[in-house]
């Protein structure tokens, strides 16, 4: 079965004071060289599931494991050496240059006082090149465009030299080109370097084309999971999103179009 990176077993989580589970009884796993997308509508528990896998929160029931050990038991430093995370939003409170920001990815590998060594510099440099942001290294972060900043943050995650990447709505604010660039980059890392990747997104069509497997979340439960073409059916999508859709296949990947009121089922195929 290979080295499992992330694993959820009947994982359940309820926020304090909430009257329903945010995640209830989810089973899933992510292996090296695999890109798993978690899709679903707002409030379906996507982000909570990712936080469980990352050990930020401990499950109220069941288990969330990283490399076979409960994820919440990992120290943040141990986790950061294995997993790079890019969240949806992040605004630095203070002025910061790009190369400094990317060097932060090395902190989990550094002692409290020691200076970054040649290996660290090299990792930063490689990450900058990999994400095509080397030319930005001297810029202030505040002057970057949304797409540039997102790529810098992915570079920072790569500088961690992780075994896994978790992207939580990391492309939500990007235009088409930048969003595609991010997905292409992640797919290349998974394929070329054997990383495991978890991508939380509401872009079902992109998930269908890039992910090896898809987990469809709905009301805290994994409504369906498996290969995109098996899972992303019209029935599942309509039930989960509560809106009529048309699904067609495009180069082997299911692509869906939400329908306008009164539109029939046939005219939207391509």
């Amino acid at each position: 079965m290979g080295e499992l990176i992330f694993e959820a077993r009947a994982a359940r989580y309820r926020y304090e004071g909430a009257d329903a589970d945010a995640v209830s009884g989810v089973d899933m796993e992510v292996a090296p060289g695999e890109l798993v997308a978690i899709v679903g509508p707002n409030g379906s528990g996507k982000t909570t599931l990712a936080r469980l896998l990352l050990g930020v929160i401990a499950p109220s029931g069941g288990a969330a494991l990283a490399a076979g050990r409960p994820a919440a038991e990992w120290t943040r430093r141990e986790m950061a050496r294995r997993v790079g995370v890019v969240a949806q939003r992040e605004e630095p409170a203070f002025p910061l240059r790009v190369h400094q920001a990317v060097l932060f990815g090395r902190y989990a590998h550094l002692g409290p006082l020691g200076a970054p060594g040649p290996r660290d510099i090299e990792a930063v440099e490689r990450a900058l090149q990999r994400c095509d942001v080397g030319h930005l290294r001297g810029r202030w972060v505040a002057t970057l465009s949304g797409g540039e900043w997102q790529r810098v943050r992915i570079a920072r995650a790569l500088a961690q030299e992780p075994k896994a990447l978790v992207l939580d709505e990391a492309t939500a604010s990007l235009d088409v080109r930048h969003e595609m660039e991010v997905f292409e980059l992640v797919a290349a890392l998974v394929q070329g370097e054997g990383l495991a990747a978890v991508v939380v997104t509401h872009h079902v069509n992109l998930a269908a084309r890039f992910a090896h497997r898809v987990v469809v979340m709905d009301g805290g439960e994994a409504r369906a999971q498996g290969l995109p073409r098996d899972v992303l059916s019209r029935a599942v999508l309509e039930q989960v999103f509560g809106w009529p859709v048309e699904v067609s296949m495009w180069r082997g990947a299911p692509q869906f179009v939400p329908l306008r009121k009164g539109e029939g089922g046939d005219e939207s195929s391509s």
Partner: protein
Amino acid sequence: MRRWLLLLAAAAAALLMGLVVGPASLGLAAVWDAVIGRGDETAQSIVRGLRLPRVLLAFLVGGSLSVTGATLQAVVRNPLADPYLLGLSGGAGLGAVAAIALGVGGAWAVPLAALIGALLAIVLVYRIALVAGGLLDARVLLLAGVVVGAFAASLMGAVMALSPAPEVRNALLWLLGSFDGASWQALAIFGAYAVLPLAVLYAMARPMDLLALGEEPAQFLGADVESTKRRLYIAASALTAVAVSVSGIIGFVGLVVPHAIRILWGHTHQQLLPSAFLLGGTLMVVADAAARTAFAPLEMPVGVVTALVGVPVFVWLVRRWAS
């Protein structure tokens, strides 16, 4: 490298200037003689007994306030945070006023009472901020600081209104900040005490870098956010409290200096903290020299000097930040 040389040169120049100027006008030669233990006895006792410990204490306190300011700014993720923001000044003031009103005796009554007041305020603010689910919420921390500070200030007003001792008003003068109480003894106590918090803060420079990005990103980059925040808050406020007890409340140094360094040299705390220490110490020595010479023999509270310079700089920074 050039930056460090510049900062060190400025610090050395400020210390030298602080040693040479003063209400007792001694020439450079007389000061030098006094330092090496020659010449006029009065000059010797003034230079060695007053000026030397005074400029060193001002430097240490200015540096410490800048470091604690930088730290609290990282904890609350706000570049406009001040070391006294978190209820400290109110607690210290209440302690000082209460000591005078109650006629507490002893050579160090007022500074000690201010220290106790400040420490109590820290504990109270910390407890309030912890209420939210056992986690230290930076926003609640800010609010708790404001509220505890206001409450202590009200109590201070009550003590002043009701006390039969008219001298309680003098506590306010003391609180405005001065290094006139400097002595080798005060310097040794402050120095010995400051070493640990300063070392703790420096050792946590990297987690501070991460914390400034936001609590979640910091976690994902390997920082243990909760314990980091707690340790930073406790070390920074305890250090500020002792600074208050040796010199009263000297505002704006801890606010403006870290901000200036950030703008000039970016944000990694491993560089920021020592640079802020040097620049803060330098500016404090200069401000103190101005405080005791501008209107000699009258002495201005050094907190007034730093505010007079700091407020315009602060306004400029706020406008810059807003745009």
